[in-house]
């Protein structure tokens, strides 16, 4: 058989090696007491129901830049932006003299089942923007939206442009019907009303399964077979466990907000049509005149570049720039390349617009 040269002795050795590594992995795991995340110190400066606004002070020895407010997605926890000391977008930004504010949406429970996009954008996000301006003693802020948080940031800026000086988007879906947007393609035939009627709040676990189903073998068999390697030392194991902790820590989604997001954005693709309805307002992207930096993951399998790039020309901004990083959806923040390129890119872009 051409191309296949298996030998029983070598397979036995491979098996023995695999199981020896398994044993070592067990030792490594046994020695780890806890998996710590979010190491950068912060103060919670504002609360609104379960939503918290956390403040990360800039390094004192660098010239100060205008404050950034990070609006993360509802579907995962925001500490991915501060996963560990050497993989922290937030720490890198503060090191460059930028005061950072981060919205933590919290974990919705059954009392939040009826929160909708109006609550999230016109109440929570708006009040966080106001609180940031008050705390930073600044008239305006730079809004940095990540993934679904980027879509929220666009909606917010279109509806309340006064407080937003610059808009930065990372791995943000814009065109939900671009050809290679598989997640959106699969969501088309899922009955969102039935989902909310059945589950109330949509379990985070269910969404996580959906993301994993986009690459079942790579995120299943291959990842599992590589586990003994990932767990070969305590440092490697902690890196792996932190990421796993984050992956499996997806909050449940408030039912009404989920229903509206799936229908208006995923199924009807209303954002680009200028027809998204948030509360009593309609989102018109042409109301956005702020400078925009659009950061895209070239290998993003969740939000493909084609979807994010659809923003070019969709707003009234005369200052639009793209930064494409050779990384996947999460790699944009946590990969060594992402950490090397993205904070510097943001700081340089901001500095030239001070």
């Amino acid at each position, binding site marked *: 058989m051409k191309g296949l040269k298996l030998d029983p002795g070598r397979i036995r050795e491979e098996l023995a090696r695999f199981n020896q590594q398994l044993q070592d992995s067990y030792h490594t795991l046994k020695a780890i007491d806890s998996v710590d995340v979010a190491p950068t110190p912060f103060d919670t400066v504002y609360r609104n129901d379960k939503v918290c606004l956390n403040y990360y002070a800039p390094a004192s020895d660098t010239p100060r830049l205008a404050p950034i407010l990070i609006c993360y997605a509802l579907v995962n926890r925001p500490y991915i932006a501060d996963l560990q000391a050497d993989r922290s977008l937030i720490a890198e930004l503060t090191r460059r003299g930028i005061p950072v504010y981060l919205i933590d949406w919290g974990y919705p429970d059954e009392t939040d089942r009826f929160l909708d996009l109006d609550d999230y954008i016109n109440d929570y996000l708006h009040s966080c923007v106001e609180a940031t301006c008050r705390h930073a003693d600044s008239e305006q802020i730079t809004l940095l939206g990540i993934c679904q948080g980027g879509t929220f940031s666009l909606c917010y800026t279109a509806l309340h442009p006064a407080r937003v000086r610059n808009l930065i988007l990372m791995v943000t879906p814009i065109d939900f019907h671009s050809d290679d947007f598989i997640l959106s393609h*699969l969501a088309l035939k899922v009955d969102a009303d039935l989902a909310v009627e*059945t589950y109330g709040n949509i379990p985070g676990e269910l969404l996580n399964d959906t993301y994993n189903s986009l690459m079942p073998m790579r995120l299943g068999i291959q990842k599992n077979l590589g586990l003994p390697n990932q767990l070969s030392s305590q440092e490697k194991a902690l890196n792996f466990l932190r990421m796993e902790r984050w992956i499996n820590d997806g909050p449940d989604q408030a039912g009404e907000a989920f229903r509206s997001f799936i229908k208006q954005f995923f199924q009807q693709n209303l954002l680009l049509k200028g027809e998204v309805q948030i509360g009593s307002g309609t989102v018109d992207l042409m109301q956005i005149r702020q400078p925009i930096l659009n950061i895209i993951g070239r290998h993003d399998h969740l939000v493909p570049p084609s979807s994010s790039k659809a923003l070019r020309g969709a707003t009234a901004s005369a200052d639009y720039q793209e930064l494409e990083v050779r990384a996947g959806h999460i790699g944009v923040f946590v990969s060594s390349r992402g950490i090397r390129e993205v904070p510097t890119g943001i700081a340089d872009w901001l500095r030239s617009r001070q």
Partner: protein
Amino acid sequence: MADDLLSLMQQWMKQLEQQRATAGEDPLDAWFQMQQALQPLGVDQLPPQQAELVSLLTRQSIEFSRFAEQIISQLEHSGSETELSALLNQFHGHLRRLTQEWILKRWQLPEQLGALFHTHSFQDDLLLDNPFIHGLKSLLNTPSQLGLQHSLQTRLQTGIDLLIEYEQALRDYSAHYSAINTDATRGFLTAIEQADPPIQSIGELHDLWVEAYEQSYADTIASDDYRDAHGRISNAVMSLRRYLQHWRNNQLQQFGIPSAEQLERIHQRLHEQRRQLKALNREVQALRTLRDEVTELKQQLNRSRRSGTRSRKQTDTRS
């Protein structure tokens, strides 16, 4: 328990070493037995996240070892002239088990029904072709005067219809996976043929399979047929779950216990009140600001009045 686990592992490693030295009894059987025994062990001494990983590693190792054993046995019996088809059948079987486990886990029936069909494998025969369903169907076909109350009969009939829809949706959905497997196998074979240098380890074989599978999978899920099948199975599982919830809510209501639907209505009312309260707070805040502004204006007015009076007096004094 953790130490038991470790000593079991060490015992097996020792056995493996001896076996390699003497080429005697194959220790893989012992490994399987040990691995099966490991699953419930040691977990309570680790934090949940680590325990979950140990469990996953163990399950993975069982599959990996089982497959390795089959390959070794095949190679030892046929020497270097091992039949490609036999090897591939084994590999295909190994991966089919993994895929099947994944599909069933992902689209499992709601808990109560899952327990009912616990032992069933949907690939073997029709999920609903069993004595329980036959009995239920014939009961439902009996005229209501002779059998169940009409409302109960209707409700059960709805449940059966939903189960049948689930079964058909699952079959339709799993047919896509069969096609993906077949297509991936074809790609896998081609990749083996073209491998240079030749594949020498099971790890490489797995990597090759993952590549072939992901390619075939990516092509399939982008199709409209797959999208429809995915939507159908998603909606079928949710409909069944909702049906059981309605059933449970009705029963709770009969016992006078508040149902999930009633709690939901309370949450909705609370949410509306929370919004109203926030709106009122905003209005109060706006009124406060207004009040402060009025006070400030009044003070300014008083100040300018006072200074006006003073300057008038000064003018009068001078004149």
